């Protein structure tokens, strides 16, 4: 009994991270009806961006300079064409941003020497890393997704498939494919009560994921921007007709999604080490969203927890029976069962039927 509770508890904590991954898929699916298959690559990318800021990793100039130039081009482009700023404002601000990024990449932020306390360092680097991930997400959206607005969602989905390979190649070129040690050194909050033991890292992962999840929900359901996103996710044409700039909304959605994936990525890296091969964890989002329902935000949370628990149970009870590796398959078997019973997922849209 104690064993069971222990297993379920750990499963739920990991499941919360999966829920966050599911949320990223769901909001993009709602906004553009496309499935983002590049989620694994966004996950590694977000983790690497955080890594650069947190651990003072520097790049040689022939890698840092092209990245800086890319940021400069993108920033000027967005400011000029999307926010329709004047050319004289757009160009210098893009230049400044690109130069700052280059400096950070080339010289390093040197946070460890500036801020000795690891918690404080985390508090500074975490939002910065997420911001960077969000910017990269919107950059990718501008270049690959925006031209497809109004076209079939399938073409967008296919683009994300190719995008995944491209991003993976880029990450390997920039940071190589070896493993980076990843240790956040957050305050120890290990819970040890009687026979129960919950380790500090999964608890932190669960808390931060849940917090991010909550913030995204507050953003979606309490702010006017969230209202515009929900309207656009229902029908892009209608939204455009009522003065909501669907292209800009899509940009924001991708930025939020990339940001959330980065949170999940940092938490997952913290369980072990960071390396390019880690991207496959992102695909764990597929059973999560299919079980919960492709277009349900609450479904992502429930689906994530279910997948986490299923994985933990399979790992604790089935693998010792000789089924090594069954842990990774179990969520998919559960997914099959759920799809047989409810093809739209547990919380898939209840279609409005007027009477």
């Amino acid at each position, binding site marked *: 009994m104690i064993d069971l509770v222990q297993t379920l508890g750990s499963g739920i904590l990991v499941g919360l991270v999966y829920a966050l991954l599911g949320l990223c898929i769901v909001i993009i699916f709602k906004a553009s009806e496309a499935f983002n298959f590049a989620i694994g690559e966004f996950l590694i990318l977000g983790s690497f961006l955080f890594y650069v800021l947190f651990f003072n990793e520097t790049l040689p100039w022939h890698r840092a300079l092209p990245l800086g130039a890319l940021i400069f081009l993108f920033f000027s482009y967005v400011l000029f064409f999307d926010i329709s700023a004047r050319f004289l404002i757009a160009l210098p601000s893009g230049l400044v941003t690109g130069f700052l990024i280059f400096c950070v990449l080339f010289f390093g932020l040197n946070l460890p020497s500036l801020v000795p306390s690891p918690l404080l360092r985390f508090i500074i680097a975490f939002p910065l890393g997420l911001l960077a991930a969000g910017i990269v997400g919107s950059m990718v959206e501008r270049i690959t997704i925006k031209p497809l607005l109004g076209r079939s969602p399938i073409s967008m989905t296919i683009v994300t498939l190719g995008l995944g390979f491209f991003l993976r190649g880029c990450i390997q070129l920039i940071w190589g494919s070896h493993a980076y040690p990843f240790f956040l050194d957050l305050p120890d909050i290990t819970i040890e009560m009687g026979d129960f033991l919950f380790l500090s890292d999964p608890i932190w992962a669960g808390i931060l994921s849940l917090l991010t999840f909550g913030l995204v929900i507050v953003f979606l359901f309490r702010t006017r921007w969230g209202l515009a996103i929900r309207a656009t996710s229902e029908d892009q044409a209608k939204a455009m007709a009522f*003065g909501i700039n669907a292209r800009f909304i899509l940009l924001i959605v991708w930025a939020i999604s990339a940001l959330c994936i980065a949170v999940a990525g940092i938490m997952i890296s913290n369980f072990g080490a960071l390396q390019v091969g880690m991207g496959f964890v992102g695909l764990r989002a597929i059973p999560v969203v299919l079980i919960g329902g492709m277009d349900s935000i609450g479904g992502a949370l429930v689906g994530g927890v279910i997948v986490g628990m299923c994985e933990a149970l399979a790992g604790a009870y089935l693998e010792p029976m000789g089924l090594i590796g069954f842990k990774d398959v179990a969520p998919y078997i559960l997914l099959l069962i759920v799809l047989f019973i409810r093809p739209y997922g547990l919380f898939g849209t209840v279609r409005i039927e007027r009477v």
Partner: protein
Amino acid sequence: MLSIENLRVVYHDVISVLNGISLEVKDGEVLIIIGANGAGKTTLLRSVSGMIEFYDGDIIEGDIKMDGTSIKGLDATDIMKRYGVTYVMEDRPVFWYLTIEENLGAASFSRWDKRVKADMEEVFGYFPVLRPMKGKRAGYASGGEQQMLAIGMALMTKPKILLLDEPSLGLAPLITEELFSIISQLNQTDITIVLVEQNAHAALGIGKRGYVVEMGRIVLDGTAQELLENEDVREFYLGSGKKERKSYKDAKRYKRRKRWL
């Protein structure tokens, strides 16, 4: 004043829908555009509102001018914000999964001022049916309520010109009458209205001036009275006209007048 000059629009690079259409919308009037299905009425409104690009259409010739400045090729959001042209799409363009209040809020997204609440009250003033159900999802509202909500949402954008695409689509005659009386009320508050309709009789009842569109061209224009009395309009759009009964065989398009002028 909105003027459309010799507009030609092509969908997917091959389907020519508007073949050189020209018309003028004077400030403060109710302009009626009638035409059969596929005549290009909706395409005309899409071009004016800047939505045409979204539907993979291209304006290949001609110009759309608002008080002399060209608005051709601008983004839909820009046209709405700068020139106050709001397009109410056909088939009740409301967000089904948002509540009625949220629908109105979403439509006011393009403005940043604080008067949204007051404007919402104004909309509820025009459409009192909506007030008691403002917490309800719009998808569960009836057809008439949805169309009223759609017009209410258009009002939230503070339009100068309102482009209405078949507001009477699928509504009972009594509701249509109510809707049209509200539309002419709106016209009293200095909103120019362009009304595209199949229901020619009801529409010409509230409009001063009208155009007949066929095959992407204007084939007839005149005051509402003139159009109502026109022999061809009576035959094709009002279902009356000549006294003797006609079989549907003879109503084919190629049997119609080849030249209108």
